[in-house]
């Protein structure tokens, strides 16, 4: 009885929900959708361009679907044809859906035209679709203030062009072109074995999450049942990375506001977490720890003891940092009522993670999905109320405490098993197949769409949450004051690694 109640509150039994959504899709959109299939915990629908508008209308307006979030639109080439992937999700029904549209035009300008047509159709229902095509930049003659990356505190990968009226920003344009790296070459048609060590660089503040997402996708593809001990150790490492990322966020915010004392204290605590991470994984930034169906190295008693010993100190020190930061009226006065946004805008722009939770929307994949072993562990999802910068900082502090709680629970009840090697990577061979997997990383929902052929990855699309936060930043900045640009950007916790990819 208690378990049923629990499942009712926390919709962790995802399969029931997905089955319901699949049935509804079949019922409402039978003639409009060419094919729909379940990939892992998500649904992929192949739609023709002519039916796209009807499908979107139904998905958006029908309460059975109630799709509010547009996560991502991306274009890719596969087996001689060009496809467009539209990733959307629903908070209320807690499911995620990918629409795949094949473009019929020949390569060149006609293909681009077709892509822009699709964007224009999506724009009717989701305002943020304009960000996925090339936008006219705010030229220097229309913008009166330009902030170049060396002069922005806390960020080195973006230039900001602003149109201002006295102190108030009227229009903002954020340019990330300076950080653009051609990274597609090294993972298209790359061996899975080699790629594993590369993936973590897509989020260098929390490197474990892209790896984890990548491996989960392949595990789902192979239908591997991962051992409990492996899952637990993965959770420990990922929660430690979450703590380290949030401490980095706090240090960044302090640096922006010139609070050097708390800045240094937060970095010292991050160092403490890094040492534990280094002990477990052997590396700090790019862990290269997760393997398909397993992990690189098991935890021994000594490491486990070290983790357990570091947790109480960490809790104490972080609570001191919180007191020093949030009991200071200068800091709270600076953060309060700045960078406010409303729920609908945030959802429409596809923001997930702590930025969305600071608005009071309870959307956390660790609770909403059957992700690893999170359903066996008791923890809370910290929520904000007003969605200003102060709320975003408070939510992150809350998440740090919850992460410590999770690590503590797992460390004291780690299943005693012998870790087995489940697969041999060099002998792997897949038929051509695709898979999606998503994970709750510290910035939001991190998603990977994979196309595998034989022993290589023929296509990989990374959908990082920071990009959506960046879109929202442009929206939020309008109406704010010039002095608050850095604080607003800092409070959104943008990770360069995810943004560079696009």
């Amino acid at each position, binding site marked *: 009885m208690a378990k049923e109640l629990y499942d009712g509150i926390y919709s962790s039994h995802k399969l029931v929900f997905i089955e319901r959504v699949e049935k509804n899709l079949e019922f409402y959109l039978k003639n409009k959708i060419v094919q729909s299939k379940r990939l892992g915990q998500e649904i992929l629908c192949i739609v023709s361009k002519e039916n796209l508008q009807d499908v979107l209308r139904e998905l958006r307006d029908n309460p059975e679907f109630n799709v509010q979030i547009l996560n991502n639109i991306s274009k890719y080439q596969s087996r001689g044809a060009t496809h467009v992937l539209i990733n959307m999700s629903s908070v209320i029904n807690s499911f995620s859906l990918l629409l795949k549209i094949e473009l019929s035009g020949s390569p060149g300008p006609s293909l681009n035209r077709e892509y822009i047509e699709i964007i224009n159709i999506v724009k009717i229902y989701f305002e943020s679709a304009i960000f996925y095509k090339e936008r006219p930049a705010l030229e220097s003659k229309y913008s*009166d*203030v330009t902030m170049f990356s060396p002069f922005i505190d806390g960020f080195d990968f973006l230039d900001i062009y602003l149109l*201002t009226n006295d102190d108030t920003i009227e229009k903002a344009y954020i340019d990330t072109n300076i950080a653009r790296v051609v990274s597609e070459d090294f993972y298209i048609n790359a061996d899975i074995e080699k790629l594993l060590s590369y993936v973590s660089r897509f989020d260098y503040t929390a490197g474990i999450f892209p790896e984890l997402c990548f491996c989960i996708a392949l595990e789902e593809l192979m239908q591997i049942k991962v051992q409990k001990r492996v899952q637990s150790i993965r959770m420990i490492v990922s929660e430690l990375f979450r703590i380290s990322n949030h401490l980095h966020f706090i240090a960044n915010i302090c640096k922006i506001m010139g609070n*050097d*004392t708390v800045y*240094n204290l937060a970095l010292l605590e991050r160092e403490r977490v890094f040492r534990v991470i280094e002990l477990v994984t052997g590396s700090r930034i790019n862990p290269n720890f997760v393997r398909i169906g397993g992990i690189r190295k098991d935890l021994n008693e000594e490491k486990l003891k070290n983790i357990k010993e570091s947790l109480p100190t960490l809790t104490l020190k972080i609570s001191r940092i919180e007191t020093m930061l949030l009991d200071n009226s200068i800091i709270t*006065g*600076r953060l309060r009522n700045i960078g406010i946004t409303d729920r609908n805008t945030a959802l429409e722009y596809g923001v997930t993670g702590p930025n969305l939770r600071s608005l009071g929307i309870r959307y956390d994949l660790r609770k909403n999905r059957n992700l690893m072993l999170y359903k066996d562990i008791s923890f809370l999802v910290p929520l904000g109320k007003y969605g200003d910068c102060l709320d975003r900082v408070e939510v992150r502090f809350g998440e740090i405490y919850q992460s410590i709680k999770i690590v503590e629970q797992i460390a004291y009840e780690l299943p005693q098993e012998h870790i087995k090697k489940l697969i041999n990577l060099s002998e792997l061979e897949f038929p051509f197949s695709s898979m999606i997997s998503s994970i709750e990383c510290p910035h939001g929902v991190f998603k990977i769409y994979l196309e595998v052929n034989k022993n290589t990855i023929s296509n990989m699309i990374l959908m990082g949450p920071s990009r959506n936060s960046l879109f929202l930043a442009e929206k939020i900045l309008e109406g704010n004051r010039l*002095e608050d*640009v850095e604080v607003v950007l800092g409070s959104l916790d943008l990770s360069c690694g995810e943004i560079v990819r696009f």
Partner: protein
Amino acid sequence: MVIILKKVIYIILIFGANLYLASFLTGKLNAKMDLARGYVATKASGLSYPVIRIFRFLSKDHKVNFWEFLIFFFSFAIWAVIPLSSNLIIVDLDYNLLAGFLFYVIIIFLNLANASRTEHNYIYSNIAKKTVQILAFFVPVLFCSASIVLVNRALSLGEIVNFQYQYWNVIYQPLGFIAVFASILLHFKLLGINSKNPILYSENIDKEVFGFGRLITRISNYTILFFLIVILNIFYLGGWQQLFFVNGEIMFTLKFYIVFVILILLDKATPRLSSYDYLVSINGRFLLPMSAVNFLITLVFFMLRNIYNLV
């Protein structure tokens, strides 16, 4: 003539040594605070760093303009009327307090005039706002100095020091001391001596006038700060009064550096203030009322004692 020349050389040497020490101390503290993060931190904490920085400024080609020349001149000229010890003063006026304030205001306005050369209106408006803030924080200092003048009945700084032969003025005027100290701390923050300039992107002006011009603006910032600390020292902490057997000049230097180090530490311990509203509210709710109340109390006592002979 030889005596005056000697005094000028002494004053320039003292000023230069203080500039070196102050920039060394700030650099050292910044480096300590920055943890051990590579060569920048180690470089900034070295003994020769302030000197190397001067060479770095000089290495850029820069034409000194009229305003910068005036700023440079007044940064040194202010020490002609401010005494650094009982006899180390070139122009000994009976009202050198007023002359010092005049020089201070002139330096601030010259900085504003220098900034007006920029092509970007935004930078200029920012610097103008900063100047207004600095002048607003100077108003409490004026109130407090008026109370000091009433207490000591003198406009000459030397006489104000002489008056404190028995007790320092901080005993009579604790409120005034707090107000002036807070005002200097806010000056410290606004001038951006310890870290980046608090007003966003106004450091772009520094980028524009990189080279010798930047060195001059830096010197003028330090001058303003030194002037205010010397004023605090003379007003409230006894100036060059001898303490038991310790020499007066040594006491003056000690007090100067104690105040300076406390200011650096307080500046580092508190976050950067970049909101105008907050700055205005500090001044309006805390500094101005406090100094005004202090002045009123002093005035009432002055009238009771000197006019009605009641106290």
